[in-house]
C-alpha cells in the first residue's frame, strides 16, 4: 500500500466550506521515458480519484500522464453532517487504495 497523507478538519460547523487535501506516493511514470538501458519505462499511473462523503460522491478526478509524481489533490466541500469521508485512488491496472477520515459536524 502506498503512503497517503490526508488532511480533513476534525470538526466543522454545519454548512461550513471545508478544504480537503490529499497526497499519495506514486511514481506516475508517463511511459514516455527510457531507462538507462534504452528500453522504454512502461507507463504506470493512477488514473482515477474519488471522494465520497457519507456515501455521496463529492469529488472525482481523472488523472493523466502529465500529472507529476506523488499527486496532490485539494478541493472544497460543504460540511453537511458528521460521518466518514472516503478517498480512493485507482491505478491503471485496476488496483484501488482506500483511506478514510472521520469528521464531526456541530
Amino acid at each position, binding site marked *: 500500500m502506498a503512503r497517503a497523507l490526508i488532511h480533513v478538519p476534525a470538526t466543522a460547523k454545519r454548512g461550513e466550506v471545508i478544504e480537503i487535501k490529499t*497526497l499519495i506516493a506514486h511514481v506516475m511514470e508517463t511511459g514516455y521515458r527510457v531507462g538507462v538501458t534504452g528500453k522504454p519505462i512502461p507507463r504506470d499511473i493512477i488514473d482515477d480519484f474519488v471522494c465520497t462523503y457519507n456515501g455521496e460522491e463529492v469529488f472525482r478526478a481523472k488523472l493523466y500522464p502529465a500529472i507529476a509524481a*506523488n499527486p*496532490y489533490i485539494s478541493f472544497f466541500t460543504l460540511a453537511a453532517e458528521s460521518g466518514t469521508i472516503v478517498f480512493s485512488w485507482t491505478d491503471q491496472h485496476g488496483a484501488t487504495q482506500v483511506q478514510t477520515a472521520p469528521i464531526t459536524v456541530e
Partner: protein
Amino acid sequence: MKPAACVVGALLVAGHGLAAEIPLDQRRSDSEFISAATRAMQNDDAANPGMLAVLDGETLWNAKAGAAQKSCADCHGDAAASMKGVAARYPAMVPGQDHPLDLEQRIDLSRVTDQKAPALPFESTDLLALTAYVARQSHGLPIAIEATAQAEPFIAAGRALFETRQGQLNLACAQCHDDNWGKRLAGNLIPQAQPTGYPIYRLQWQELGSLQRRLRDCMTAMRSEAYDYGAPELVDLEFYLMWRARGLAMETPAVRP
C-alpha cells in the same frame, strides 16, 4: 576588438580569486530564491511530498533490522527527543573515524555496527527516508557546525574545492553562489547554495534526493566528472557548505524546483 569586448575579456582573464564569502548577515535560505508556489508547497506539511518520505522514515525507525534484531528506536527511543538537533550538526567528526561522516553515512554506520545489518546504499529510498526522518527532528533549529581543530582541515578542503575552477566550463561553485547569487542564470535566480533542507524533494527529480546527489548534479552541469557517492571530497564539500550555512534554520524536507 571593440573596447566593450576588451573589458569583458579582461574580466574573464582576471577570473576568480576576488570572491569573498557571503557575510553572515546577508545569508539567506535557498527557499527565498524559489517561486512562491514552490515555497508554499514546502511549508504546508499536507502538500510537501517530502513528508511522505518522513513518514516512511518513522516506520523504518521503529522496524527491527539486521542480525541484532534491533530497531533504531530500541536504542535511541523517541526520535523527537533523541534526534532533535542532530542533523544540524552533520557532517561531523565521529570517534573512531578518520574522516567526517555525513548524516547518511552516520546512519549506515549505526546500521552496520549496532544493528548488524547491511548498509543501505546511497540514494536508496530507505536511506533517504531515514535521513529525512532524522533531519526532520531538527526542523527550525539553527545549523550548528563548529570548526573545531579536528574538523577544520576537512572544512578547509571543502572550501578549496568550492573555490576551485573545474570542468569543461572551467567554473568554480563560488563564482555563482558567492559572487553572483540573486542574479539570474537563464530564467532562474541563483541561490546561495545553503544546504538547509536536505534531503530535498526536487521537482525536477520527482523524488527525494541527498545533498551529494545535488552536488553531483551541479558538477555534471559544469561538465566536470562528478565524484562517486561517499567520496571524501563530496563529504568535505558538504561539511564546508553546512559550516557556511551555520545559524540558518533547518527546513528538511525542503522543496526545490
